[in-house]
């Protein structure tokens, strides 16, 4: 049986991934902040799929703690999924540095802090897969959410570089760009139904991307074309658009 570590284990996408991998006979390790919730998830996964599940306390912006967490995992994971994300409040972030900092630290700094260490160990082992959940918002900055977008853009660039570096030692890196997903994070937003995925679809997409060694995956293929279009709009026009 193989092991998958999911960081940000209480998010809806993480939960869906845990179910999908457990169903395919993976043992699960979850790291997250709400340990009580993780405990309930652990019981549920173990009963439903007869696999073993370990849980760890994880605080994204406590950077000092990350190395210790990764170095002391009970069983070393074959796959590590980075599923931490913080949408934040764009307007608040424009005014308040603390909100901006929170967005940048959770979405980017924490990822670097954790994945640096994971990459080092995978490189040493000459095997492993890293999955980073980034966002289509990182493909081009837009006025409505550019702080979130910028942090995800940084994450995408980081993952791309990591992929290039690790490809030499048989370690694979997958970048996932889910687009809109109906989750707790987006429960306040009105999302267009045709472009919105459910967490289970994201989980399936991640599972297949790992299996087929995909590099960059958009969960709904429409997003690849939409973002390609958006990325190619000349800046002089783009800056006057309301997106």
């Amino acid at each position, binding site marked *: 049986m193989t092991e998958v570590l999911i960081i940000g284990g209480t998010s809806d996408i993480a939960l869906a991934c845990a179910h999908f991998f457990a169903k395919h006979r993976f043992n699960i390790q979850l790291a997250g902040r709400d340990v009580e919730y993780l405990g309930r998830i652990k019981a549920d996964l173990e*009963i439903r799929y007869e696999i073993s599940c370990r849980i760890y306390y994880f605080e994204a912006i406590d950077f000092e703690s990350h190395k210790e967490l990764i170095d002391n995992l009970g069983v070393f994971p074959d796959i590590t999924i980075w599923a931490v994300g913080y949408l934040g409040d764009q307007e608040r972030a424009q005014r308040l540095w603390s909100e901006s900092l929170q967005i940048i630290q959770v979405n980017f700094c924490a990822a670097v802090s954790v994945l640096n260490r994971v990459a080092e160990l995978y490189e040493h082992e000459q095997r492993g897969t890293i999955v980073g959940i980034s966002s289509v918002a990182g493909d081009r900055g837009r006025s409505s959410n550019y702080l979130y977008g910028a942090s995800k853009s940084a994450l995408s660039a980081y993952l791309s570089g990591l992929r290039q570096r690790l490809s030499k030692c048989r370690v694979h890196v997958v970048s996932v760009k889910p687009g809109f997903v109906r989750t707790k994070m987006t429960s306040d937003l009105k999302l267009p139904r045709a472009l919105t995925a459910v967490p289970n679809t994201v989980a399936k997409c991640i599972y297949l991307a790992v299996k087929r060694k995909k590099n960059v995956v958009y969960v709904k293929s429409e997003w690849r074309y939409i973002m390609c279009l958006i990325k190619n709009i000349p800046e002089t026009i783009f800056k006057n658009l309301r997106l």
Partner: protein
Amino acid sequence: MAHKKLLSNWGNYPAVTAEETSFRTVKEAREFIAKHDGIISRGMGRCYGDASLAQHSISTLQFNKILFFDRLNGIIECEAGVTLDSILEVVVPAGWFLPVTPGTKYVSIGGAVASNVHGKNHHIDGCFGDHVIDMEVIVASGESLFCSKEVKADLFVATMGGMGLTGLITRVKFKLKKIYTSYIRQRQVKARNLIEVFELFEQYRHHTYSVAWIDCLKGGDASGRSILILGEHALSEELNARQSRNPLTTHSNKHLPIPFNLPSFILNKYSVKLFNYLYYNKKMPKISDDIVPYDSFFYPLDVIRHWNRGHGRRGVIQYQLVFPLENSLNGLTEVLKRIRKSGMGSFLTVLKLFGPYESLISFPMEGYTLALDFPVERKLFPFLEELDRIVLGNGGRLYLTKDARMSPDMFTKGYPDADKFLDIVNKYNPVFKFSSLLSTRLNITTKQNAIL
């Protein structure tokens, strides 16, 4: 956390614009309850009428963890949003089954308790609530209370069939039933009329599962002609070679979708008559025996995912009544006569004999229950009031879970212990923080009932 949307239950009637909020932890649920009034819990929305509709519906579907499963003794503990379907996936391969199951597996555990659902084995095993060991309910004060037959027994009893009015059920622990295979030994027996099917129900009283499909449009000597369907969990040696290869399979079935509402004229008096004729006269001896998967025995309609759409956009009203045993023949004869005269066809008409049953606020009592479904149309409402009079006149009552239109009077007369129930609701839900469209319509949670 919340957005307004058009909500309706399985009957698609009534449909209201309401807020639906979900929660993932007890803390989230308590915060929501503290801030809002007019809350009702909602699971899969498989009750037919307005029982899980309110200004603020609180969805349990994200609160759906299985917390404990004792494979040796058949005890399971799960959160309110877990569906029967997903419980079956876990327990059937381990040789266990639901102690009681309604006619669909797409209901949540919270809903099964709040409606105190019954199944084809009511005369042997009672209702779902009879198998519950203990549970937890968040009451209006925000406290999460543990209750069982011994601890806070009043809360325990009133929550069973209490339609969510004592609070938000969060966790339920219950006993399962031992099985050796996931197949059912089924027997079907044809009955020429109502009297014969009554005799057959009596004759087969000791069978675990029994239910009858009844032709509600046939008149004359054949009025009430039916097919009685009986079942027992099959033993290993009763399976054929193919079935024996995997005796505890969950037969994950394929679903046929009905992607949109069919025009309501498709199910009418004539098409129902035709269907009933073909179904009753299908090539079958008087008695036929089979070994069938549990799925097709218990959940024949689940195969068609949105079968409720077959009744059109206006929706459907389920009318489920029960008569005390001594008045059953009289009452049913009269009801069938009235349906025939009205020309309104009920597509799915199901008859069942309940066993003796004592409860505070649950639907079953010893006698015959009949479930009818009618597409919503203007002339339906006065017609159902006629049926109400027959039900009351014979000492019967209607099932709250299916109801969308009965009067407060019909409720109080049908449920003689309603006052006792209300006292307990008042204790745990004193200003009716928890109330639904159903409870308001039936005057259960109105001011004059509140102790302020």
